[in-house]
């Protein structure tokens, strides 16, 4: 059996009210140690108020080669953006 500690992806909530953001990864034997290590590696200067640790092999990711089929369809749908519509000045803020 391989004796290297598994890799964990670390997500930190920077401030109350913000979402957790991916900040990097680290190795740890289990979730508890991953959070302890994350606290030492990623929050030494008040960078966070909450930590999530996810074992890297549990993350499902889209493939770079799917970029076209996944994201191109939305490029032609400009009407999904509010700026598509002309609202007369007289109408006021909308």
């Amino acid at each position, binding site marked *: 059996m391989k*004796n*290297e*500690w598994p*890799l964990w992806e670390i997500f930190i909530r920077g401030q109350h009210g913000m979402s957790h953001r991916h900040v*990097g*990864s*680290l*190795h740890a*034997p*289990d979730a508890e*140690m991953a959070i302890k290590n994350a606290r*030492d*590696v990623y929050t*030494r*200067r008040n960078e966070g108020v909450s930590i999530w640790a996810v074992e890297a092999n549990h993350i499902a*990711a889209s*493939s*770079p080669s799917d970029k076209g089929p996944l994201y191109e369809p939305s490029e032609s749908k400009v009407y999904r953006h509010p700026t598509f519509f002309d609202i007369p000045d007289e109408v006021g803020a909308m």
Partner: protein
Amino acid sequence: MYAQMVKSEATTDDPEKLAAFQARIDAGEKIEPKDWMPVGYRKTLIRQIGQHAHSEIVGQLPEGNWITRAPTLERKAILLAKVQDEAGHGLYLYCAAETLGVSRDELTEMLLDGRMKYSSIFNYPTLNWADMGAVGWLVDGAAILNQVPLQRTSFGPYSRAMIRVCKEESFHARQGFDAIRKMAEGTPAQKKMAQDAVNRLWFPALMMFGPSDADSVHSTQSMAWKIKMNTNDELRQKFVDQTVPQIEFLGLDLPDPGIKWNEERGSYDYSDPDWAEFFDVIKGNGPCNVDRLAARNKAWKDGQWVRDGLLAHARKKAARKVAAE
């Protein structure tokens, strides 16, 4: 720099894919781990990021040496925080290298058996407290000049690691300058120690940028790939130009009579370090090469039971949880 003389690997990939890859880099796009990349790009980056990471880790040794002997509790807390940062920098960088398909243990083993290098600067000793000031101010100051442009490097994980590192690095240079300034403005004996530290560390700091451009054979491909952003001599000149006014402020001298303002170039002239010494240190013959590698090997060996124990505990807990379900 922290990665000196990293050899660019030749690439034997499909020319069409190579051209498309280069076009992405030229357009300023970031390359991410799962994207296609030339074999040589991957190999060169593993070597460069690995060497950079090893430098952060080995770089803890000359400073860790002085934590217990810091002159005040405040200086001790500052130095401790600085050395802890270096461990963090090493970890960010190892993780970036790992996204390229090399494992942490493989990287560590390559450092321990000498297949991978770390920066030549850490093979010089830190003889007294003044060296803590000189190292923070000159060595970290030099490192910053290299690392700031690397924030724009083409490989996403390396770039993001550099952004984190740079945020913390200016604390390192400033605490060093503050420590040496205290001594330069202190008693004559303290000032003499500060001068002595500068005398010993100036040329090794200049060597950090690597051999002169004329002898730097690996630069062209790495610069095209944006994994090296400036030439060695460009960065070295910038370092000299930024340091001379600081040394004047401190009332100390640089151990180089060749330092002179060059009106025409708008830069300071300076003397080259002894390149024969540099190559000798790289080969393993510096004053501390043997000590540094022995310390890292001992730490790795002594820590084995902790790594194994924690993993065994984690596996036992996981097995019990499965059994309970």
